[in-house]
């Protein structure tokens, strides 16, 4: 089996030759950038550079899928937020969103007709088509979108959004609606460009930020609608300990749930049933970035024992992460 066949086998509930290993979130590191001679900040806004950096996950690490993009700003910028530009290595710059945000809670957010040609989206689509052309038959292409709640957080700023979840929750619906439309439109364009899998990151929907009932009563509906409209397999990644909402994450229609090790894969299996595919692995900060290869291997084995079926970094890989720690993950996957 090649890498792509291996990934698709697991998602389609067929037996792979071994466990696949790849990221639901960004896997780019400075080491990989050096090896493929493609650097930040260009990797955040130039399609050719972005493609080169993404492909390093396959050519340098031996991961079974490659993943774009490497920050969470594409939809938000196309919806009117200002991007704080990425910077070079010494300044540790992943792009973010500038303050103040474009909207206040009483405003009506607009979904622009020309959404897909705004901001940096054309470059992201270009990156996917380059990867498709170069590696499309060998390796799975994972393309990222951002969840409705997290996009709403970019449009309103997190604190006003969080306050509204208790004070005037109905007012957040138009923002979730626009966030859903944006992610869905981007997902469809990414699939047209060659993406095999859509990975939805929804950081702000974590129980560490909002009450579980807010996820159940608001975000779940939009996430279902979005995933229903996406034709390829979906990965849903929500940061932190998601035990309190994992049952509802399993109802979204995502074929794969990506979990941090703080969340219990055993619990997720019990709550979501046998059909959902679980992906995860060691903590990207405390283990993958900080510790050595032996500790990474041990942590990966523990995740697999907990029920993980696709080995992955628990969240976005810190760009300073040593290559040998990422290679250690692949080694563990090869043994399963």
């Amino acid at each position, binding site marked *: 089996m090649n890498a792509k066949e291996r990934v698709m086998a697991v998602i389609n509930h067929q037996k792979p030759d071994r466990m696949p290993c790849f990221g639901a979130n960004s896997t780019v590191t400075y080491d990989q950038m050096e090896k493929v001679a493609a650097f930040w900040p260009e990797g955040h806004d130039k399609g050719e550079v972005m493609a080169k950096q993404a492909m390093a996950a396959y050519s340098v690490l031996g991961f079974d899928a490659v993943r774009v993009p490497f920050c969470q700003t594409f939809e938000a910028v196309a919806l009117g937020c200002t991007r704080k530009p990425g910077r070079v290595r010494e300044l540790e710059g992943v792009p973010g969103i500038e303050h103040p945000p474009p909207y206040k809670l009483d405003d009506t957010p607009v979904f622009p007709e020309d959404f897909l040609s705004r901001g940096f989206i054309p470059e992201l689509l270009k990156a996917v088509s380059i990867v498709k052309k170069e590696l499309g038959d060998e390796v799975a292409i994972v393309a990222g979108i951002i969840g409705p709640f997290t996009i709403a957080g970019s449009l309103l700023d997190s604190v006003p959004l969080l306050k509204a979840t208790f004070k005037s929750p109905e007012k957040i619906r138009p923002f979730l609606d626009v966030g859903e439309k944006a992610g869905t439109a981007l997902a469809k364009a990414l699939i047209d460009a060659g993406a095999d899998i859509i990975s939805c990151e929804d950081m702000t929907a974590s129980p560490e930020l909002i009450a579980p009932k*807010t996820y159940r009563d608001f975000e779940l509906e939009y996430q279902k609608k979005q995933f229903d409209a996406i034709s390829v397999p979906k990965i849903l990644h929500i940061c932190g300990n998601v035990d309190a909402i994992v049952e509802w994450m399993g109802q979204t229609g995502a074929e794969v749930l990506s979990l941090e090790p703080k969340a219990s894969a055993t619990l997720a299996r019990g709550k979501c049933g046998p059909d959902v595919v679980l992906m995860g692995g060691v903590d990207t900060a405390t283990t993958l970035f*900080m510790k050595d290869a032996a500790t990474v291997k041990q942590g990966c084995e523990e995740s697999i024992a907990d029920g993980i079926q696709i080995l992955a970094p628990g969240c976005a890989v810190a760009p300073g992460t040593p290559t040998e720690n990422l290679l250690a993950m692949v080694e563990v996957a090869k043994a399963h």
Partner: protein
Amino acid sequence: MKVLKDFSNIFKRYDLDLEKTGKAKEISKDPALQKVAQLVVDGDEEGILAAVKDALKSKSPLEVINNALIAGMNEVSRLWDEGIYFLPQVILSSDAMNVGIAECEAKMGKAMDRKAKVVTHTAEGDIHDIGQVIVNALLNANGFDVINLGADVPVDKVVSACKEHRPVMVTGTALMTTTMTAFPKIAHQLKQAGLGIPFICGGGAVCEEYVTEYDLGIWGKEASQAPGMAEDALAGESWEAMRAKWNG
């Protein structure tokens, strides 16, 4: 046929057992103070002003601050620690408390006496930019003067705020691996400027081993530790002594 006498479970949603339920304790025997405290617990920043004005008719501003506003916030802190309250509720309560404190300070004609200054910030580039909200609320509720630099703060700004305000302690929050690398840089620049201020670092991505690698760094495991740490710093404990006490 079995006749059901107790219908209470029929309408109970099976999924609600995932969310803990709990109630706030009574905070004051005095009805006016209890009302103010309850509005802090409820996070009602619109309703609290009238209740504070009402309480100030019979109580001194300091009584209202200490026995209702701060006492209410301490109850919110308990509900948070026990997993009953979530972050949005803590933010709303903190805002309500601040509305009340501002009204009491207006009545006193001066700001309430604060124990000492603490500078707080969230690391530059962090999109989970609200980790420090609870730290601010608890420090505030425990009588510290919080110099809140907010979220997404560059290294230079933290250092210059420390030079300007001379706080007893500085805190940094980072929830992403990509942003916590600012902390050693801040610590280094503070030391170079001759400011040996205990620098409490915490948040999702941050672990003890990382923080204790650089001078001044003390790992903050929980937001609820912040007031205790600030008391130690105020008592003149060095960063080394604080690290020995709170970490390892």
